[in-house]
């Protein structure tokens, strides 16, 4: 671990930054009705870090990770993922970026209801331009095994429990070996114990694979599984030292 002199004060560097967000602003709408959802946010996350993003409803959490994941384009500012400038990309480039470099876990798992767990993984494997069916099948089986889903692999989501579905969604997010995993309230649809298990699993996968992860959550108890905590309040992003969190709730 080397000290990095140019790092922003609020970012703890543990390796080379894979994700850099510089002065990013997002404004919805125009004129009188304009809403600034994110105001001049900056952060940088190093490879292998699992970060949580906390904040009250409407504070801009989803907006921020949507921009980072190439689902929204910032009004101003720069987002860099490795050597690519996400904030400059066209729609088509963003689609490819998401297919190849970003893994998403949604609030409700949003699995394809008519594909089995295994096929849900294979489906995303077919999205990048270059893909091998054989390698994908092998990887899907490995992931399902790791997530404890081997004997559920041929079930459609309807036949899976909520926790199992979220585990499949995690497998799907990891399938294409992305650089970045983005998770928006993964436990919203689960009870506490299950939610905890899912987040634990996520943290383990992110760590083991040396991925970078950002998890949006309302749930303070999930914070213990992450390396760093960021807070958003009314579109303003700050790195938390752990004290304000307890004050707010």
């Amino acid at each position, binding site marked *: 671990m080397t000290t990095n002199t140019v790092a922003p004060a609020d970012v703890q560097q543990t390796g080379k930054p894979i994700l850099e967000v510089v002065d990013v602003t997002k404004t919805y709408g125009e004129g009188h009705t304009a809403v600034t959802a994110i105001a001049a946010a900056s952060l940088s996350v190093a490879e292998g870090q699992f970060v949580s993003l906390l904040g009250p409803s409407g504070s801009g959490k*989803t907006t921020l990770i949507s921009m980072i994941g190439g689902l929204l384009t910032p009004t101003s500012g720069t987002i860099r993922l490795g050597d690519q400038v996400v904030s400059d990309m066209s729609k088509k480039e963003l689609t490819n970026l998401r297919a190849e470099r970003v893994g998403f876990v949604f609030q409700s798992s949003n699995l394809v209801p008519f594909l089995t767990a295994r096929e849900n993984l294979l489906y*995303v494997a077919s999205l990048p331009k270059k893909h091998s069916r054989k390698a994908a099948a092998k990887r899907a089986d490995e992931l399902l095994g790791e997530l404890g889903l081997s004997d559920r692999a041929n079930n459609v989501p309807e036949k899976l429990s909520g926790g199992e579905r979220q585990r499949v969604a995690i497998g799907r997010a990891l399938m294409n070996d992305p650089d970045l995993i983005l998770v928006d*309230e993964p436990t919203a649809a689960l009870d506490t114990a299950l939610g905890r298990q899912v987040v634990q699993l996520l943290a383990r996968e992110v760590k083991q694979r040396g991925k970078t992860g950002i998890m949006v959550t309302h749930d303070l108890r999930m914070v213990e599984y992450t390396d760093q905590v960021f807070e958003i309040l009314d579109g303003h992003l700050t790195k938390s030292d752990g004290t304000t969190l307890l004050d707010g709730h």
Partner: protein
Amino acid sequence: MMLAFAEIKRARGRFLSIIGALALITFLVLTLSALSDGLFYGSTGAYRSSNADGYAYSTDAEGSLIRSRVPVADAQKYGQIPGVTKASGLGVLLTSGTGPNGELDLAVFGVEPGGAGIPTTLTQGRLPNPGEDSAAAVDKTVVDKGATIGSTIKVGDRSVTVVGVTQDSNYQLQPTIWTTIPTWRAMQASVRPETRGLPPNYSAIALEFSNGTTAASIPPVTGTSVLSTDEAALAIPGVKEQRSTLNSIIYTTLLVAALVVALFFALIVLEKRELFAALKALGTSTRRLANTVMTQALVASIIGVIIGVIAARLLGLALPAQVPTLFRTESLIQISIFTIVASVIGALFSLRRIARIDPATALGGALQ
């Protein structure tokens, strides 16, 4: 492809409904078209099988052979018009007669053997020879009703012996028998006593043209008008009307097919907005989702059409012979293609909706 087929396989119920709807539409359109073809072909066979290029009617007949009456001398006059290579008298009588299996409706055609206006669709035997007055060739439908070569058919007090069989040569849905002019006259005098004692005439004159001559270019003899054989077929009372009525029902039904498919896929896409948003967020291109929907529309319509075709053919076999249906391969292929194209067009309407789905709505909170 993976999505398209997996959904059809695993969400079979909903696709069965659209396949069923398309099968029903195909069945309906095919049956209507078979009826339209049956009526058309059964009404116009005498013209379509004829060797004549045109027909001259009395002007007041409006193209109806039954109403038309032309003086015998007009045949000679037509024969002298340049461009006319043959002009033969033609006699028509719609009546009933007695065949081996009893009474049957008949259209008696008196023709001049070797002249114009004789059928070219002989499948067995021969036409009556010149001067052979008690012989007739009959349409296959008469054979279906029990006649064979050598059997006797009686109209009024005149009997003829069957010497040949023609095909697809009926007139106004009545089976035809093809005999000589004198036999026709004798039959007419026998069943229509009011025609006795009138100066001899023909119903119409069948014409054969030299190359390059058309019906329109012939100066008609006074009191008559000339139609080409194709025009004559459409001029049969009711034929044009039947055909255009049935055709407009067919086109409307095809439009309904497009609407049904459009509605179905609009619903499917509406229902899957959230899933499609998630798939787009995962990096699925709009194009791939569009391909999925179009593939499904194509597969559903092809299966629906196949079932519809089979059902229509089975109905065709089960229908009694009195119902004039004709299943032509040409119409069948045409309608199948039209139905599939209509479905694909219907499905195209959902593509705009797919394109408009915003992947950003896939993340929690943004959908509200």
